[in-house]
């Protein structure tokens, strides 16, 4: 923990019109670790990820990559830093084959023409490197793959680019038991290979099975980021549903309240604007 985190977010704010979705969020990710990002629906997980991925730009706060401040304005900026996101349902184009999908947006060219042999070989090597053996042909359309295979291809696509951070948005949400196990094994292998992995999940079993750290969001605020070994299942559930658990989580006096009741009279002036913006 003493080493610099690979990615560090400090005080990220994000609003959509009058709705403040992220409020002063801190978040850090270490290489070689799986950091789980958990939270109830609407807690801001997806928004946070999209800020990192360059889909949205944050209204405030800073992003440090390798200790250096960076600005991520679009998906290409994120990709240039080595940040890859695997979106839940949106990762792949059904009518393209596996190789075409893995290289989409970053095709290899020789002159004007697509360099298919090189792309095919790199795709094969990446899949082999991840010990993926379930795919029959690299030229089959993604629509013909099973859910687990699709997720595998999506993850392989993310690691193809010497990426350093892979963010997985609910990678197991639509999968059966055996396929979930396969994907989680793959997630663990990514971290063991030295990548920083962010796992967004609703499933506590998955989170406890593979993560090293857990970061909990509650109504747009980062409740806590803790080592997985230091918390229990029940504590995590309480933190993401109520924002606090015993001594952990948000405390009412700090003025970090979310504008419903307690935060109003004793919050510092900067908070009043955000509380006001909330209604």
């Amino acid at each position, binding site marked *: 923990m003493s080493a610099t985190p690979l990615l560090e977010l400090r005080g990220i704010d994000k609003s959509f019109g009058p709705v403040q979705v992220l409020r002063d969020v801190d978040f850090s990710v270490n290489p070689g670790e799986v950091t789980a990002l958990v939270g109830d629906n609407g807690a801001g997980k997806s928004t946070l990820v999209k800020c990192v991925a360059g*889909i949205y730009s944050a209204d405030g706060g800073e992003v440090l990559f390798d200790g250096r401040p960076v600005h991520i304005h679009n998906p290409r900026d994120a990709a240039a830093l080595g940040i890859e996101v695997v979106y839940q349902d*949106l990762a792949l184009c059904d*009518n*393209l084959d596996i190789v075409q999908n893995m290289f989409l947006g970053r095709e290899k060219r020789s002159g004007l023409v697509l360099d298919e042999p090189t792309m095919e*070989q790199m795709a094969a090597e990446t*899949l*082999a490197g991840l010990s993926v053996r379930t795919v029959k042909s690299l030229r089959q359309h993604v*629509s*013909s793959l*099973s859910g687990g295979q699709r997720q595998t291809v999506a993850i392989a696509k993310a690691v193809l680019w010497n990426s350093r951070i892979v963010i997985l948005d609910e990678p197991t949400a639509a999968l059966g038991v055996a396929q979930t196990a396969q994907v989680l094994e793959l997630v663990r292998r990514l971290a063991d290979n030295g990548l920083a992995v962010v796992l967004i999940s609703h499933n506590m079993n998955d989170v406890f099975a593979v993560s090293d750290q857990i970061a909990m969001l509650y109504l747009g605020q980062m409740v806590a980021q803790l080592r997985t070994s230091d918390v229990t299942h029940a504590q995590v559930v309480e933190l993401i549903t109520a924002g606090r658990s015993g001594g952990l989580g948000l405390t009412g006096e700090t003025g970090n309240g979310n504008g419903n009741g307690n935060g109003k009279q004793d919050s510092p002036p900067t908070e009043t604007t955000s509380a006001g913006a909330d209604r």
Partner: protein
Amino acid sequence: MTTRDREVTEAAVGPESPTGQGKTAEPEVLGLGSLLGRGFGGLPVLVLLVLGLSLATDTFLTGTNLDNLGRQVSIYAIIAIGQLLVILTAGIDLSVGSVVGLSGVIAAKAVFDTAGSGSVLLAVLLALLAGAAIGLVNGVLVAILKMPPFIVTLGTLGMARGLTLLYTDGRTIQPLPRSFTSIAGGEFLGIANLIWLTVLIALLVGFGLRRTVWGRYVYAVGSNPESARLTGVPVRSVLLSVYALAGTLAALGGILLASRLGNGVPTAGTGYELQAIAACVIGGASLFGARGSALGALVGALIVGLLNNGGTLLGIDPFWLQVAIGALILVAVGVDQLQGRRRVRRGA
């Protein structure tokens, strides 16, 4: 389902690695299987039609008839290839027929007013620009204002036709000088310019779609625009380029039609948009996007042309021919659906 997957996994953990499998897979891009599988299903129908007509009539396989057929089909094919680009992005361009009319009269009026002394090339460029401009308007409304392509191009269909009638006062522009009519009338190595041009365009667009990044993006946008956008595909630029090209190719079709007919008719091209869509669908394109090829559109246009030509040669009632072509569209779409269902079942 899960047990089956595990079986697959275990079965595949054999001696051959995925790398090996990837390499043994047949060298992509132009295998016969992939041709048939990827929007080239019209080819067998085309071959059958040619064989049938050659046997049934003495007149089909004559130089004059084939030349005539080629000239007829060429203009439709060029417009259909433009239409295909839009269809690949899961859009549709209803304005191409009106663009044919507009560009035809723009080119015709330009050469008519200068009585052939001005530059024909300039007239052609002017007409192409008009087509590209209408295409761009379509593109901007679809890509940036997110309006549905059907409505957008329905609007520009009306506008372009109205402008054509205004521009000409509803009158036909004729006669046109030889320097202009020779574009479509001329030939090179014994084959009509029109046919050369069509083949060239089909090859160029086919190459662009299959072998360049732009083509890959066109299919990606048609397949899943949201995931394409998230991967960093410039979805807006791709859509703009596709509509602009469709407009430009339609304009080219209009210029060639005016050149072939030797006059600028303000109502030329009426209904061509539907012919173009029919050619694409018969050639294996899916209106849901991301499926189809330039050669497929060419084949589709040829099939429609052959049916018309063959029907005339065989003395079939042209009214029945319309019924037949309509039915063929339904068959093409039906086969496409069946194939899709089989694919899904295989993949499940």
